């Protein structure tokens, strides 16, 4: 794809008057005295829609799709996002006709198959995480956080606790404080110590009767396991607070350690990270929320129950926070996660976790020779490096990340977590081979060499992509959010002519 260096015109620019893909028949009612659509709803001017043939549109989108970076085409070590390969069998099986034709309004007795899968998925997640029950309803990690904090609030209200504060570590994901604020809590930040773990002294100074909850990932955002987690759990429970597990980093622990055993009361999972369902694209997603015994009554309703061989939707518990999604969540995504779990089995999942840790440590060991590592020592499934060790020309992390694109690698996460300067956060996941990891290291060695001898090559990268460096500052300060029709029609109607016109503007 590196030969594609020209900008793809937009559909509006490719448009030519009278080009058509589909010819619509004239509406039968058009000449009736009573038009189908009342006059006040009819538009007065013609819509400015692009006019193209079907083949124009197919080629346009096919060209755009080739510009994409994706797991299926590139190594994608985006720290904290767990961009693992999504096995094709997930899609093959979850798109079988019986699943596609199932309708959520079907009566329970005609939905036994799907209900059984969802019930079994809940059982599997309960076993993996060491909690009592899961609701599969929330549609994403962020909604799961919201749901979890609603449960925190309901629990404290129920027990007459006047609590206003949610604690998050300074390495936390931005969604944690955002979710807490959305549920009405004040957020306070707990510092990390010199090892990159929760600073127990600073935590102690924040604890008090008004603390409702502490939200943690474990391993944390620096890729470190919180070795004092049981002590932390005791500390938060002593003041009547709850301990919340953000499942962003569950991957390395699969089959080895369980949040419930560490003392977490509430656990949310990102199925698109740990359980290989598709990432992003605007959804649909799934963020199951699990809780310890005493919080089960507060879970969203309905839950799925079993009576002998029959599955049914349980009536809502009076203390339930209610629904957070229509029907029972995004069932087809849940089916994909179920297929992944059943394909690997308990032993396979354990090996997933182990391999993710092994791959990350292999990369860390090789990369610490060329990068500063702010928190040295063994990591879990991911790690954070800072600037290049030999850096006479002041090359920044942004330059390294942009240059990686030229070599066919998606960049790692950069400038996060914010407590590390010039951070680059690398998570290879378990699905990458030794050869890919070696190739990645060799590429970074090449870039380190360029940083010493050809700094401009890095500062101006990427050189081979359709768009080099967008002006992020202008895009954020003066965003242009609507399409403006070019003021003059181009005399040259070829795509090349259009491009020439664009570059003049």
């Amino acid at each position: 794809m590196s030969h594609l260096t020209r900008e793809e015109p937009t559909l509006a620019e490719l448009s030519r008057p009278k080009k058509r893909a589909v010819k619509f028949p004239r509406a039968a009612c058009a000449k009736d005295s009573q038009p189908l659509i009342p006059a006040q709803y009819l538009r007065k001017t013609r819509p400015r829609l692009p006019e193209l043939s079907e083949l124009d549109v197919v080629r346009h989108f096919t060209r755009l799709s080739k510009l994409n970076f994706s797991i299926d085409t590139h190594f994608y070590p985006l720290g904290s996002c767990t961009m693992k390969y999504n096995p094709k069998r997930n899609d093959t099986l979850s798109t079988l006709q019986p699943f596609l034709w199932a309708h959520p309004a079907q009566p329970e007795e005609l939905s036994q198959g799907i209900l059984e899968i969802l019930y079994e998925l809940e059982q599997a997640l309960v076993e993996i995480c060491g909690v009592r029950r899961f609701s599969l309803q929330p549609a994403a990690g962020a909604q799961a956080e919201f749901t979890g904090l609603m449960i925190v609030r309901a629990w404290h209200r129920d027990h007459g606790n006047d609590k206003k504060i949610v604690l998050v570590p300074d390495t936390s994901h931005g969604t944690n404080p955002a979710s807490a604020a959305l549920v009405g809590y004040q957020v306070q930040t707990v510092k990390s110590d010199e090892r990159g773990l929760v600073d127990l002294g600073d935590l102690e100074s924040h604890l008090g009767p008004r603390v409702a909850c502490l939200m943690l990932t474990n391993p944390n955002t620096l890729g470190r396991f919180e070795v004092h987690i049981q002590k932390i759990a005791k500390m938060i429970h002593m003041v009547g607070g709850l301990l919340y597990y953000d499942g962003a980093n569950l991957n390395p622990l699969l089959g080895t350690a369980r949040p419930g055993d560490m003392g977490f009361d509430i656990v949310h999972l990102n199925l698109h990270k740990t359980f290989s369902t598709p990432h992003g694209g605007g959804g649909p997603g799934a963020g199951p929320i699990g809780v310890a015994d005493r919080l089960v009554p507060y879970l969203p309703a309905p839950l799925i129950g079993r009576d002998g061989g029959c599955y049914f939707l349980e009536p809502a518990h009076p203390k339930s926070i209610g629904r957070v999604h229509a029907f029972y969540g995004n069932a087809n995504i849940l089916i994909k996660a179920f297929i992944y779990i059943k394909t690997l089995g308990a032993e396979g999942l354990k090996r997933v976790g182990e391999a993710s840790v092994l791959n990350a440590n292999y990369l860390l060991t090789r990369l610490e020779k060329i990068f500063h590592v702010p928190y040295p020592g063994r990591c879990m499934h991911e790690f954070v490096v800072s600037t290049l060790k030999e850096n006479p020309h002041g090359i920044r992390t942004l330059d390294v990340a942009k240059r990686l694109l030229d070599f066919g690698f998606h960049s790692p996460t950069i400038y996060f977590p914010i407590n590390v300067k010039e951070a680059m956060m690398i998570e290879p996941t378990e699905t990458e081979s030794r050869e890919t990891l070696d190739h990645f290291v060799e590429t970074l060695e090449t870039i380190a060499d360029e940083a010493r001898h050809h700094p401009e090559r890095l500062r101006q990268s990427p050189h081979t992509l359709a768009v080099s460096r967008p002006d992020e500052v202008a895009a954020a300060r003066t965003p242009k959010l609507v399409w403006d029709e070019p003021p003059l029609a181009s005399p040259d109607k070829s795509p090349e002519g259009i491009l020439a016109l664009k570059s003049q503007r």
Partner: protein
Amino acid sequence: MEFPHDLKYTSTHEWIRMDGNRARVGVTSFAAQELSDVVYVDLPEVGKEVQAGQEVSVVESVKAASSIYAPLAGRVADVNTALKSNPALLNESCYQEGWIFELELTPGAPAQGLLTSKEYLKTLEGEK
């Protein structure tokens, strides 16, 4: 980088210009540089009562969103509305035109923890 001697500072990189019971607050040139290009400043409401150390405003740059804390207890008496249309002022003139808000100080509230320019400079050495 300049840190004017007539200002007070906090370890969280705010500067304070005291004038009677008023305190004008902005971010230091070190913070402005670390933030990189500022694209949005979330100004507090005038009249809001704040405690020392409480989050008052958020500054967004292309790199990150960072909290600005009240260095002292008081009431927000004024905000720099010029930042709404031109957040770049914070980068271009952090001690003058890029000020963020002004507090009317709570009478008798302790003014603890403020640093002189010399002391602030010392805290930066730890950060580099």
